[in-house]
């Protein structure tokens, strides 16, 4: 008798465990979907510890990525790193953060480079490379998706 009760309890527990796992999977899925949505968010990233992390205005940021503002407030050089024009994260950054179309940025860089009035940013091949160069280079600025952020770089908030 006691054995049958025990069996029943185990079955009930198993059943509960099954339901629990299903809920867990659902939660995970929800978390995951939430996570992927957040991964699409792009953050302005700078070298850690070297620059101010007070929020930067969008128009100042666009002057930096447009290569027209070339020095930090302390007079040191700004080094801009980006990904290729057709890179998904670059497009996302242009549209989401700068609110500029990638072709506009390219036009602005071309105008500087081929008229002797400025330089173009350095184009890197991956977010990993971007993070490494930003972490290493004094005065560096770039961008990373949330999943590629780590404690070697700092996020510059945009107001």
């Amino acid at each position: 008798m006691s054995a049958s009760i025990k069996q029943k309890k185990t079955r009930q527990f198993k059943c509960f465990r099954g339901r629990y796992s299903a809920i867990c999977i659902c939660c995970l899925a929800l978390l995951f979907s939430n996570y992927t949505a957040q991964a699409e968010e792009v953050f302005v990233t700078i070298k850690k510890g070297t620059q101010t992390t007070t929020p930067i205005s969008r128009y100042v940021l666009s002057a930096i990525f447009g290569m027209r503002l070339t020095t930090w407030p302390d007079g040191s050089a700004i080094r801009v790193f980006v990904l290729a024009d057709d890179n998904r994260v670059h497009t996302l950054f242009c549209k989401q953060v700068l609110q500029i179309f990638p072709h506009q940025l390219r036009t602005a860089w071309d105008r500087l480079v081929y008229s002797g009035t400025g330089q173009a940013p350095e184009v890197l091949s991956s977010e990993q490379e971007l993070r490494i160069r930003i972490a290493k280079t004094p005065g560096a600025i770039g961008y990373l998706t949330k999943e590629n952020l780590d404690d070697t770089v700092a996020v510059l908030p945009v107001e």
Partner: protein
Amino acid sequence: MTQLPFSQLNNPVSSLKYHGWNSQPVTIKAFVLYLLCLPLSVQSHAFELFDSVQVHGFASQAMFLTSGNNMFGPSISSPGFDFTELGINGSWLPWPNLRLSMQILSRRDGAWSNGSPVIDFGLMDYSYNFTSDYRLGVRAGRVRQPYGLYNDTRDVAFTRPSILLPQSIYYEGTRDFTISADGLLVYGEMRKPWGNLNLELFGGYARTDNKETQYSFIQQTYYGTLASDPGFVGRLSYETYDGSLRLALSGAYTSMRYKPNALGDNLPRGNIGFDPILISAQYNTEKWTFSSEYSYNFSNSDFGTSYNTSTNGESYYFQSAYRFAPKWELMGRYEAYYTNTDDESGKAFYQNYGLPAYTQFAKIWTLGLRYDITPWMMVRAEYDYTNGTALLTPQSTLNPKTGNPDYFNTVQYWNTFGFLVSFRF
């Protein structure tokens, strides 16, 4: 020295290829510079030196097939290939506020140019950011003339809306005269949430020591020399910070002196003045770009009693580009040019000189298609329908091979089919 990628140092050519276009700052990490820096134990110094050097370049070849009039070279019965552009430029930032730039250009555009390389620009640029909102700077040397939407990069096919720039505003005949000049340029920039305001003022000497300029202003080739007096060019421009709207007002005051050839010349000593005003506007969306420019110019020549003119010319274009698919762009444009606003039809010119009225104006319809094969390679096909020959360049008309030996022995209505291939890095 760990920051220096040795593979790129050892093979700058492969690094050029690898970086490709994207104006990937093809950082030419010249081995010589590296060696020079070895004694410098300060790592950041060497790093700064290498990473502040950029080299970029471009190459374009055009083909023109025309009816009625020749373009640059013979192009009526069979395609002409007399238009080539090759350029390479480098810039170096020794300090955050100081930049040195130079571009060498080789260009073929008809009988007078053999493609020998010239310094297109070569300058020193110092600028200072007072705050992130204000910047003041000065450029000295051979600098690009701040004029309109396209003059700054007019030799780079990737930056042009069509095979050639709209001739009504950026006439090839006066290219050398308008592109760059020797002198000093002062500029100021103000950045605000509502947009950027730029003012550029240049003072110096235009490049008048070439046949195209002489012919474009005197209408014939003489034996003397045309020298530039100090002139001024300025541009005030406004741009929303995202570049969607661009507005500009440009103007120039130029003056040239003709000095007759001591061995005999049928043109006496004289002065020529050319003062254009240009209003420019451009509106960009993700898929569309609408551009329009309007120019009014005052020109006068004073050669004593023998050859005096004072005319006001007018020109404009309307242009739209549609990026209908990734890598593809369709372009349409209408432009008009009138040598003399008091005689737009050229009838008075015909009555006075007995020469064709259609040499006094040009009205051009253009339809073009651009395809970016890769980000560093582009091809473009274009069709022009032209009424009038006022914008037919002297490079085209005075080419002994072309079959338009006489400026006035031309056809009023003519077609141009053009094809261009261009590379850049």
